């Protein structure tokens, strides 16, 4: 066996240079002039983002999920309001070029600083920023699809949103869910006592709930703040609606879902 290997080698080794040279000769003829590289112009991606709070007339609706939603924001609101109350907390559009570092922000925060009058030396109440902080980055996957990555958070107070009344608020409700709005009104007999002790801020103070009476410890709690993280990543087609739903309740509020809606549109 060893002898066979040695013979095999002795035959092969002298052939090696020929094999190498033969391989060179069989190479296809390549033009010396390099082909001009065609740089396709970066496409533009238009992003429409909306944050919707959905408060179902019956909590069972949330278990059915939201995959069936489609169309534009008007269509989504029309579909949802048949099953409950819909509040649009944010709506915005951004355009970005689909290059290597394509990203855009959808931040929209608001605060309500609170001033205590007539209480020198009293501590400054905490200030909360409500709203959306969201950054979306994008990159082209192929001619039809784009990869989106989003990171951020949404903070809102159910107590504040439930106070939305009237035609000028972005709150929608179907006739079948008419009871929902009534039930969502803020209750609590203690709220009127806020004004009896000391003036706190502006109308926002109406939502404060003092713990105990005027002679007690005078500890005030602000309305409930809910914060959810919004982080995901996915490939999608132009015109496809992305629905990112989050339902969360740890306190004693009724069921509600925050829907992050993204409509990407690839422009030529």
């Amino acid at each position, binding site marked *: 066996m060893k002898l066979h*290997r040695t013979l095999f*080698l002795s035959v*092969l*080794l002298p052939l090696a*240079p020929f094999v*190498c040279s033969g391989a060179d000769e069989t190479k296809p003829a390549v033009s010396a002039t390099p082909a001009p590289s065609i740089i396709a112009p970066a496409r533009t991606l238009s992003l429409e983002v909306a944050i919707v709070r959905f*408060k*179902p*007339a*019956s*909590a*069972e609706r*949330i*278990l059915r999920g939201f995959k069936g939603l489609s169309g534009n924001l008007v269509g989504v609101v029309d579909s949802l309001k048949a099953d409950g109350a819909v509040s649009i907390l944010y709506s915005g559009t951004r355009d970005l070029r689909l290059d290597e570092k394509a990203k855009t922000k959808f931040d929209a925060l608001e605060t309500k600083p609170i001033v205590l009058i007539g209480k020198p*030396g*009293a*501590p400054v109440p*905490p200030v*909360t920023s409500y709203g959306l902080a969201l950054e979306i980055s994008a990159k082209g996957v192929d001619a039809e699809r784009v*990869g989106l990555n989003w990171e951020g958070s949404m903070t809102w107070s159910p107590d504040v949103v439930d106070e939305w009344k009237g035609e000028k608020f972005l709150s929608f409700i179907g006739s079948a869910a008419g009871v*929902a709005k009534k*039930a969502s009104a*803020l*209750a*609590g007999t*203690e709220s009127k006592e806020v004004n009896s*002790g*000391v003036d706190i801020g502006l109308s926002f103070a109406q939502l404060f*709930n003092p*713990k105990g009476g005027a002679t007690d*410890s*005078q*500890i*005030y*709690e*602000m309305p*409930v*703040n*809910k*914060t*959810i*993280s919004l*982080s*995901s*990543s*996915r*490939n999608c087609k132009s015109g496809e609606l*992305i629905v*990112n*739903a*989050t*339902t*969360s*309740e*740890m*306190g*004693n*509020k*009724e*069921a509600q879902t925050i829907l992050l809606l993204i409509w990407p549109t690839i422009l030529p």
Partner: protein
Amino acid sequence: MKKTVLFLIGCICSTGLFAQVYFIDVDSLPPTVIPPEPPALLSVNTALVRFVPKGNKFMGTLPSDQTISDVLKALGKEGKVNLLYLGTRFFDRQLTQTAKFDAVEERPSFSLVTGKETTLTNRQFGLKLDLRAKWEINGAIQLEWDGNFSWSNELLNLWVGDKYLMFGMSVAKILKPGLLFTEGGEDEDEPEQTGVNLRALFGKKKEVKKEEPVSATITNVSFLDTDFQSIALIGKQQVQSGEIAILEYPGRAGGESGEKIFLLLQPIIEE
């Protein structure tokens, strides 16, 4: 018969032509495994459920191969179910990022008494959960999670009415808001139940005269006064697409009998 592969490596240097021959026994090599092409999209449904059994513990079987609604239905047959979190997050093809399922709530507080505010606690109730996913060679998905969950039994016991994510109440009667339920008898379908009816949820109907639902009064409860429970959620598990990882954690120690917290994770491959 052994298969042998001969490698001939030749090179030319200044001193001439050299060659080296290697014999490799193919049979002794480990099998080459080509990992499957990652699918286009992975979504993970996550739910967090508080369960208080009517007996000492849950005696049934939870269907890990069905939907999260089916798991709630199975739990609801044996007690009270509070759905505390339900959310979906997407992963990109490479599964590079960590999905966050954070959802917390708080009531910032302050005191008008100087110096008092330093002693105040500002409690945060809710879920903080980081989830990572990894493709396995057998087509399964390895999930790894790390986080914690904080809740108050006193707050959750205030849930009354069909606008709350509360299930399984067909076995119990609500006395009044703020109190725990008691068992309502042998007939699960008794009409005076309060809360979400599993029959309505899952399509099984019975001809009964429906009573007016209890009008829900949203009680205002201080976050500073309520009990505060917290557990760590750490672990990893391999599941197939569509399968639900059902993780069971003990509820409040020494509290309501048999209280459990269930973390449900369901990865779904979508094309």
